[in-house]
């Protein structure tokens, strides 16, 4: 597929960056972008460009044009008023800049398609990968590139991890970034691509699919520019890694052919849903779901089997969990006789061996540990849902530590349900930072687990479910 899609390496791992529109005035976007480069500790060359003619900006020698730099430039970030962008872009082409991010707005999103067309034709003339316009640009936590014009103190930055996030909308993008750090999973790359004038969804999906640092892709789209190419790329991408997608603007657009039944039903959102379903995307219907799904895919193994064991230290939440399994197409595990026997030895007599297993309100880390240990080994169990209610007398940091121990080395997916306030939150953060996905409700946990199973089934069907991803390889029993 090489050649048909832009390679974004020079944009995401640049050795040198020119910031066009860099400024001494702290309120200017160009100033914030440049300041951010210092804040995140970018180690490549930074060249501020400003037509105003300051000698230095933020302590660096400033240039009037990229043409004056006369050194190799991997990435130019353009943050100047829209009407000046074509000239700046043309100069980037002449200076042999390898990639460009245009953060400026005022193009097709406000109806100025002519100005946007100008950008497209300049980019084509030089074969230049251009991101935007009207976007936040890119952030790569490993290469420490950050073109976002958001003051760093206003947004929590996630830690380094395996999830890459592409967003058409900058606003959704920055809000989700903030939330990602709150959900405690690690980010690899963030790409906000705005109007997709040159680099579009297909290019980005293709790049992230082949990016070794990206384990999970999350994608916010409102539409795609090249439908056929998007499908072509998707077929390959979803075989390699989970792609969680959320589409904004799902009310049926007015169809020109509304005179037929078919046309009025298969409106454009129906087409998107068909594409998501058919080509292995994991569709999220809300931002919460998008983050919940990302969390389980980042840290837990895939499984095509759906017998879930539930252990809890509170009966009622266990009942809700049983309902949520059923409602999401999952099954309740039935423990093997060996497992029941082992559990009877370690559980107090009041604990019933049927699912969901209520270990009682005084369950401590030892009880949790023993149960998880037995269930992890039971071949009748494909996944574990652990409900740890930190409001109970027995649950404390030792319980969290025990769950972390098993949740990070288990061959079966583990999800934790832990609703609660500050005390629970502290422990939830501990668990999540270690790679154990924690959910506020059994419903959210079951939905995420169901998404994991559905995607695993897709991979198996496509013949791309690695042996190492599969759980219960040796299990003789199958679901029916």
């Amino acid at each position, binding site marked *: 597929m090489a050649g048909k899609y832009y390679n974004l390496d020079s944009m995401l791992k640049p050795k040198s960056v020119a910031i066009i529109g860099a400024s001494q005035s702290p309120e200017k976007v160009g100033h914030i972008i440049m300041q951010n480069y210092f804040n995140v500790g970018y180690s490549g060359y930074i060249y501020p460009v400003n037509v105003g003619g300051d000698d230095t900006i933020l302590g660096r020698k400033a240039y009037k044009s990229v043409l004056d730099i006369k050194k190799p430039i991997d990435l130019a970030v353009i943050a100047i008023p829209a009407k000046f962008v074509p000239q700046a872009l043309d100069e980037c082409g002449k200076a042999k800049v390898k990639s460009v991010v245009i953060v400026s707005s005022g193009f097709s999103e406000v109806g100025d398609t002519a100005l946007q067309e100008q950008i497209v034709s300049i980019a084509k003339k030089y074969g230049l990968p251009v991101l935007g316009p009207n976007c936040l640009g890119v952030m790569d936590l490993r290469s420490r590139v950050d073109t976002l014009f958001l003051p760093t103190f206003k947004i929590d930055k996630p830690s380094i991890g395996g999830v890459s996030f592409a967003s058409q909308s900058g606003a959704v993008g920055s809000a989700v970034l903030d939330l990602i750090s709150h959900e405690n999973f690690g980010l690899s790359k963030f790409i906000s691509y705005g109007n997709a004038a040159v680099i579009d969804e297909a290019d980005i999906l293709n790049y992230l699919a082949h990016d070794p640092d990206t384990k999970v892709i999350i994608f916010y789209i409102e*539409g795609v520019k090249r*439908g056929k190419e998007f499908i072509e790329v998707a077929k390959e991408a979803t075989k390699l890694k989970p792609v969680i997608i959320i589409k904004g603007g799902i009310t049926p657009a007015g169809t020109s052919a509304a005179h*037929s039944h*078919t046309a009025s039903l*298969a409106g454009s959102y129906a087409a998107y849903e*068909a594409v998501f379903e*058919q080509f292995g995307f994991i569709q999220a219907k809300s931002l919460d779901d998008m983050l919940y799904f990302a969390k389980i895919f980042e840290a837990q193994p895939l499984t095509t089997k759906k017998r879930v064991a539930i252990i809890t230290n509170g009966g009622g939440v266990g009942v809700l969990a049983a309902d949520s399994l059923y409602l999401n197409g999952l099954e309740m595990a039935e423990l093997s006789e060996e497992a029941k026997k082992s559990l009877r030895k370690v559980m107090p007599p009041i604990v019933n061996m049927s699912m969901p297993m209520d270990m009682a309100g005084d369950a401590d880390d030892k009880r949790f540990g023993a149960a998880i240990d037995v269930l992890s080994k039971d071949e009748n169990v494909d996944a574990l849902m652990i409900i740890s209610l930190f409001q109970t007398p027995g649950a404390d940091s030792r319980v969290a530590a025990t769950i972390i121990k098993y949740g990070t080395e288990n061959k079966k997916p583990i999800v934790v349900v832990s609703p609660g306030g500050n005390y629970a939150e502290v422990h939830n953060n501990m668990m999540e930072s270690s790679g154990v996905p924690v959910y506020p409700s059994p419903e959210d946990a079951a939905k995420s687990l169901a998404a994991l199973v559905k995607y695993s089934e897709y991979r198996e069907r496509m013949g791309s479910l690695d042996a190492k991803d599969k759980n219960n390889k040796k299990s003789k029993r199958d679901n029916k």
Partner: protein
Amino acid sequence: MDYMKAYDLLGRYKIKALRAAYVNSSKEATDFARENKIVMKLISDKALHKSKSGLVKLNLSTPEQIGSAFAELAKKGEALKPYKILVQEQVGNGTEIIIGGNTDPQFGKLILLGLGGIYVEVFKDVSVRVCPITEYDASEMINGLKSKQIMLQDQRNERIIKNLLLDVSNFLVKNPKITELDLNPIILHDGTYDAVDLRLMEE
């Protein structure tokens, strides 16, 4: 596209519609019926919802029934010129489904399956896929419907619907100029099917 032309074209892709003919008189209609039950329809570009507008006459078999239906449709046709009158064998009871095809500006040909008749618009219980579809996709289109159990009351229907979906997908892919297709309804009965009404739109 003209009904009979569409009938022939789809026939080449193993998609069979009911035996039908255009008639110019009640005599021709009576000859077509040969005392079997027939349906008579008024075909006009100006008439989109035939059954709602009383442009479909059912259960005709005697020359009297056929004669009065022809006269009534011919009268209604005056307001919908140009028009033609089509006669068709009438099939018995069965399960009605709809299969549709459409062209999405982004993703190309789409195929749609739903329970037929009036229900498709009420419940919006349809599944859609991008063409070409695989056999798995065809199965999942059926599995994705709430009305699956109604559709598959007769177990043989599953195979029929799957094959039909694959044939329609193949037809849509090989005929890029057909922008829309509407097989509505298709009646599943006795281990076979009949496409009762068909519409093809060309670009």
